[in-house]
């Protein structure tokens, strides 16, 4: 295998890139250098993370590429990183989307390019670090540090109500995550360990588990987000610049799902068993309610934002089914949503860059002028609906199969949500793309250019790849998920 610290290199390469950019003086001429350095750094990170995938040992359910050294002398806090089947694709998703984000903001970020690229590179380091940590405190440090660059990205480069949105985003998610800090300290006090691997052995009494579970729930439910903690999301999405929305939808929401799998399922199985009905109820309400809300939106970005909440509802159902199909479905749905919603936001960005509005009514008949755009948009729209052959199908299908083992009411709720998702997405597509051009301003709108092709085509390919060869993604994660399910069942059988 690899005898150099690959994971650490992947984590800190973007940060090194950021340090280099820090010393490039910014003016009209050099801003292109800044963009190129950022792009090359993130591409390098992506290539390195591909090595992670190629060298990944499918037969090993626990962590691989582990690196561990002592950090604090006075308590068991280690710099401990590694990758298992669950975190592998989360890391790949982050490294894949960040270069696309940088490309997407190539021309439309005109002020403070340097700070923008710095924020994105710092964000990438923090995201990867979070998914790769095997130490809870390290996880927490990264989890909270995500807020800093995201706050700046929304606040500086966002839309009109950016200040409100950035504060809401920051304070809402901070409120959730500080409770997790208390839970982490309580865990440490009970076990004298901060290792995620170690804590998955179920060491807590039932009552302690309930409190810990609620504390973790507070942070992950806000992050993922679950109804009724989702209200920060539409604001943040609408006000964030395109690339900010992409990262927010593509990776940041997955932090919640990842946390649920790792902490709630992995460490607090008995409490999870107790709270499953709550989660299922909230998820079904989320799916149906936010789908209906999405139907009524007049802003494209807001519509996609609400659809994210609905899709994340499918993810939480899948996770808390705690069976093989459910968890695999949830993971696939997260990856798929990471690609599809990111791509949808990029598509919105394409027309927003040209027309500077996101009102649905403004558009119509784009297929007349932008045939290529209409095609890629359709692929992602169908991916979001969950058409067989696209990535969205695999996740939703597996979750529903898993849900049959649990309760048919959940199936009905989830299926109803999927139908609604087809309704609002197709309706959106019809209003924007089809028909004849009625608005004169759209008369000479240009089709997507090369840069936009470079961004959208890899996404389209991976959406279809994921739909046709799901095993490419399911095989590496299967054993890690099985391990979590086995631990969960042993704990609850006692």
């Amino acid at each position, binding site marked *: 295998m690899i005898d150099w610290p690959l994971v650490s290199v992947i984590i800190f390469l973007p940060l090194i890139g950021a340090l280099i950019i820090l010393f490039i003086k910014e003016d009209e001429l050099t801003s292109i250098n800044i963009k190129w350095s950022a792009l090359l750094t993130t591409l390098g990170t992506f290539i390195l993370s591909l090595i992670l995938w190629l060298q990944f040992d499918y037969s090993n359910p626990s962590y691989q590429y582990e690196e561990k050294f002592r*950090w*604090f*002398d*006075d*308590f068991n806090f280690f710099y401990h990183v590694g990758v298992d089947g669950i975190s592998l694709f989360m890391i790949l998703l982050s490294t894949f989307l960040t270069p696309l984000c940088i490309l997407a903001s190539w021309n439309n970020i005109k002020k*403070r390019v340097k*700070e923008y690229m710095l924020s994105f590179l710092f964000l990438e380091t923090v995201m990867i670090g979070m998914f790769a940590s095997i130490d809870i405190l390290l996880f*927490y*440090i990264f989890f*909270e*540090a995500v*807020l*800093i660059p995201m*706050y*700046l990205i929304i*606040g*500086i480069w966002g839309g009109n109500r*950016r*200040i409100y949105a*950035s*504060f809401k985003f*920051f*304070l809402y998610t*901070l*409120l959730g995550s*500080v*409770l997790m*800090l*208390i839970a982490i*300290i*309580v865990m*440490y*006090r009970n076990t004298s360990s901060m290792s995620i691997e170690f804590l998955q052995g179920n060491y807590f009494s039932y009552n302690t588990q309930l409190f810990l579970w609620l504390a973790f729930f507070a942070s992950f439910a806000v992050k993922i987000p679950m109804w009724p903690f989702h209200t920060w999301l539409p604001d943040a999405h609408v006000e964030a610049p395109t690339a900010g929305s992409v990262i927010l939808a593509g990776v940041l929401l997955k932090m919640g799902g990842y946390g649920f799998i790792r902490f709630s399922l992995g460490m607090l199985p008995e409490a999870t068993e107790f709270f499953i009905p709550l989660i299922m109820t909230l998820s079904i309400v989320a799916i149906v309610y936010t789908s209906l809300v999405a139907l009524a939106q007049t802003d494209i970005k807001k519509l996609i934002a609400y659809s994210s909440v609905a899709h994340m509802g499918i993810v939480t159902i899948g996770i808390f089914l705690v069976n093989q199909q459910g968890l695999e479905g949830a993971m696939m749905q997260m990856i798929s949503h990471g690609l599809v919603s990111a791509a949808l936001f990029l598509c919105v960005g394409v027309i927003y860059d040209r027309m500077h509005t996101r009102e649905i009514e403004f558009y119509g008949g784009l297929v007349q002028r932008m045939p290529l755009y209409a095609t890629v948009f359709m692929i992602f729209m169908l991916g979001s609906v969950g058409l067989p052959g696209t990535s969205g199908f695999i996740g939703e299908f597996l979750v529903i199969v898993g849900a049959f083992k649990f309760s048919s009411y959940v199936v009905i709720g989830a299926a109803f949500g999927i139908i609604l998702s087809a309704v609002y997405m197709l309706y959106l597509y019809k209003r924007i793309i089809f028909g004849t051009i009625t608005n004169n301003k759209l008369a000479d709108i240009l089709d997507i250019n090369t840069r936009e092709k470079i961004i959208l085509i890899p996404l389209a390919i991976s959406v279809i790849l994921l739909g046709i060869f799901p095993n490419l993604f399911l095989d590496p994660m299967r054993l890690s998920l099985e391990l979590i399910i086995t631990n969960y069942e042993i704990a609850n059988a006692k």
Partner: protein
Amino acid sequence: MLNNIYNILFIPEIFLACSSFVCLLFGLFLKKNAFRQTSNLAVFVLLLTILLVYYDSESNFANYKSLFSHSTFINFFKILALLGSIASIIISKDYFLGIKLKNFEIPVLFLFSTLGMMLMIASNNLMSMYLAIELQSLSLYVAAAIKRDSISSAESGVKYFILGALSSGILLYGFSLIYGFTGSMNFDDISFYLSKYDNLNLGLIFGLVFVMVGLAFKVSAVPFHMWTPDVYEGAPNSITGFFAIVPKIAAVALIYRFCLVPFENFYLEWSQIILFLSIASMFLGAVAAIAQSNIKRLLAYSSIGHIGYILIALVAANDDGIKAASIYMFSYMIMNVAIFAILLSLKVKNEYLINISDLKGLSKSNPIVSLSISIIMLSMAGIPPFIGFFGKFYVFIAAIERELYVLSVLGVLASVISAFYYLRIIKIMYFDESKSEGIINFQISFQSKIILSLSLFVIICFIFYPSLLINISASLTI
């Protein structure tokens, strides 16, 4: 005999006292540049004192009939106070020259006040404690009112003096009750006397409450905090910096020692007082700071909030609590030094910056300064990976070790509220569009620049090598 005198001279407090007089005379006889030279001498004297504290052997004389005590905790806080006062003298030098306040007495006042603080930290007797507090406060009263022709400065001095005298009176009354009921002024004797009883009698409880009120005033814990914003606002900025950085260190050490040495067996009695002070300070500090438009008032409320967190560690009253307090106090000092080093060098239209809204557009005209302010603010809000997070983290570890779950949850909630006003400063610098640019000037002297860079370095890089500070603070005994 001669040998003995040398030994006496090298006792840090005595050395500092003698050197302060030397500084006073030195300033008096200088014709030119008296202020600058005296400041430099004062910094030098303080540096020497740090060395003396560091290498101080446990000489019996220092205890002087156990008026003073000697421990690693005391030494740590003494060094912290000395470092804080060195930093604040250096960063305020240019400011004083800038507003043409060149009295050479200022550094001497700082020296005397620092001497008072060192005695406060070490005091082991009610009487020496009271005298040390008075020495410290008297110097600070004068310092607050030093800008004689300014009404606000005089007002802040008088306010500070009247309220300070009131609290000293209350403190003294509490001392007299404690003395009356235990028959001793010495901490160890009081502790020994009290160890024979299971309950405190009514007189002692009254004494304890009065002393707590007096001490709460000194650390500016809610509801005895009223003076803080006014004094911070009225005093010249550099004096405010000194107020924010140094006296808090001594007062915190004092309240820790008072609770944990003579009254250690009566945890239940004092902890409920501290518990209330802590919760009230955290929340009032967080909420009241939101509406401030004056940066000095904002920092005043922010320091009130920080005191709330340090008092959590006192309620925990275990080894982890002492460790947490020392780490938190260190981070508090570093962050305040950094923010005041910047504030004392920012000028808006030739006036030193006061209004938060004047920071608008700073990120364009001076990106490095605004980045530094943002980092300090995030660190104060306790966002990882900066040092402020670890201060709060250790406080919560200590609290949970004592099973103070509710208090910890309240603590983190207050930290979310306080994050709002720290973020507001970042928002003003980065998000608000400024119409007019280049109003803000940043001029900093070489020495302050070193202080600023060092403290920023510690704030950012603490996470990479935390063990140095943590091992020191883990070894402290009260």
